[in-house]
């Protein structure tokens, strides 16, 4: 079991409330996944710059003089905003590769990179994880959250969802993939590498790899139906988009709601109970082996 929530806003006036709405949805899914929780949120775009979300088990020492050290290493101004065990770094877009090399060299974990995406995930109850990162106060255009009950790999920060395998792309998953080791080897031959033993990260890398090869988000999601084996309900985010796909057996639950203001996804209807206008929303169960996506 696991819980998934997602919210894609169609209008700007709800943007300041995105984190608040997603947090309530996430906490409602606690009993589907109490061991870790995470959220990817697409907030303010850093124009001409790139945001890197990092994680450390010893943030006090690691983040203390990071701003100076990183700026020196990439020879450009970089800002560091610590958020509990995570920090969001903002730096010139052309310095991304140098910054990632420097950060990984220091043993810091890269959660995600993008012009608007930030990723926060930790071990613990969803309510506690949300409070640590102050998710309620975060605004944005769309976001995806996950509550995890681990099956395929250990309960660790890196095993928590969402997984990001390309700039501004992320994936959350309920289910388990059975051909992930084979797919991991196939992707490695193409030069696409994963960081964890987790099956979902392979799914994320597969989608990123297809998009990098020129596929649209919709085409990449179509590809999961043929190329990934196992059980999955996937929800994926890109800079401008939000997509959903379920495997053909579709035993992992999914429900969607749409109003003029938003498109929402959840593992269970419970997560929608507090959304504005839910009583008048179009609510439906996504069909098996069918791709749904919205882009702005």
């Amino acid at each position, binding site marked *: 079991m696991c819980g998934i929530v997602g919210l894609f806003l169609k209008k700007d006036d709800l943007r300041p409330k995105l984190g608040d709405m997603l947090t309530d949805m996430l906490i409602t899914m606690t009993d589907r996944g109490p061991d870790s929780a995470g959220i990817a949120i697409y907030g303010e775009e850093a124009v001409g710059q790139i945001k890197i979300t990092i994680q450390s088990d010893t943030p006090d020492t690691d983040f203390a003089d990071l701003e100076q050290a990183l700026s020196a290493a990439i020879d450009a101004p970089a800002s560091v905003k610590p958020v509990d065990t995570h920090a969001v770094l903002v730096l010139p877009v052309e310095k991304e590769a140098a910054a990632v090399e420097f950060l990984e060299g220091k043993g810091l974990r890269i959660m995600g990179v993008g012009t608007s995406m930030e990723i926060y995930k930790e071990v613990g109850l969803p309510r506690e994880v949300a409070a640590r990162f102050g998710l309620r106060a975060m605004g944005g255009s769309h976001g995806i959250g996950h509550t995890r009950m681990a099956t395929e790999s250990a309960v660790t920060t890196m095993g928590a969802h969402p997984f990001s395998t390309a700039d501004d792309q992320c994936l959350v998953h309920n289910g388990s993939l059975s051909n992930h080791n084979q797919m991991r080897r196939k992707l490695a031959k193409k030069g696409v590498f994963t960081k964890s033993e987790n099956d979902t990260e392979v799914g994320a890398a597969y989608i990123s790899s297809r998009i990098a090869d020129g596929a649209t988000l919709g085409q990449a999601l179509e590809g999961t139906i043929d190329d990934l084996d196992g059980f999955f309900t996937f929800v994926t985010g890109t800079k401008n988009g939000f997509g959903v796909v379920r495997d*053909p057996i*579709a*035993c992992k*639950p999914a*429900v969607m709601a749409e109003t003029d203001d938003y498109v929402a996804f959840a593992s*269970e*209807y*419970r*997560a*929608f*109970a507090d959304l504005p206008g839910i009583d008048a929303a179009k*609510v*439906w*169960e996504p*069909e*098996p082996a069918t791709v749904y996506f919205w882009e702005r």
Partner: protein
Amino acid sequence: MPTLDMSTTPLREVNVTLQQAAKSQANAVYEITNPRGSHAVAVGLDGPLSVTVKGSTGYYCAGMNKTATIRVEGSAGPGVAENMMSGEVVIEGDASQYAGATGRGGLLNIKGNASSRCGISMKGIDIVVHGNIGHMSAFMAQKGNLVVLGDAGDALGDSLYEARLFVRGTVKSLGADCVEKEMRPEHIEILQDLLDRAGADAKPEEFKRYGSARRLYNFNIDHADEY
């Protein structure tokens, strides 16, 4: 009419109250407000109680129902009316996976669509779905009637025993050992009764009947050499 507000009353208290009322207050009428997608609402009722749920429910609503009438004024999550014995369950919206699974009797009346595995392993329940049903519906269904006013998904009636399936729309594909069968007068009569009871605006003549070809489960002495 007694009202149980689930925003202030714990689920267990709601169910205990309903279960006791079903036993002690013949034909009492209860209303449940603010279900907010809760699991296991109004389960295990054993008596002629009438319950209206004002909103959508989560997993396993109205499970094991006996004699009671339960109306959900919203949609229902997975496993609605699972193992129902008798009585009636009405879903005004849609039902999720495995609606009416293993049901032994009574009527499950779904006004919207039902998703995958509707009526899986049904054992005597009657299910009427006013919309469409998803894939693998009536898988291993043993007894009872599944009536679908809309379309059916893939692998309808796979490994079917003796349940009757009536579909008005298209069937995407039939499962193993499920075949279309002749609609005889007795089937028209059964179907007319079910449509009337479910308040469905349809004529029995518009439906096709599907059932078991009996090649999969029925031992045939002529095939003894194959074992």
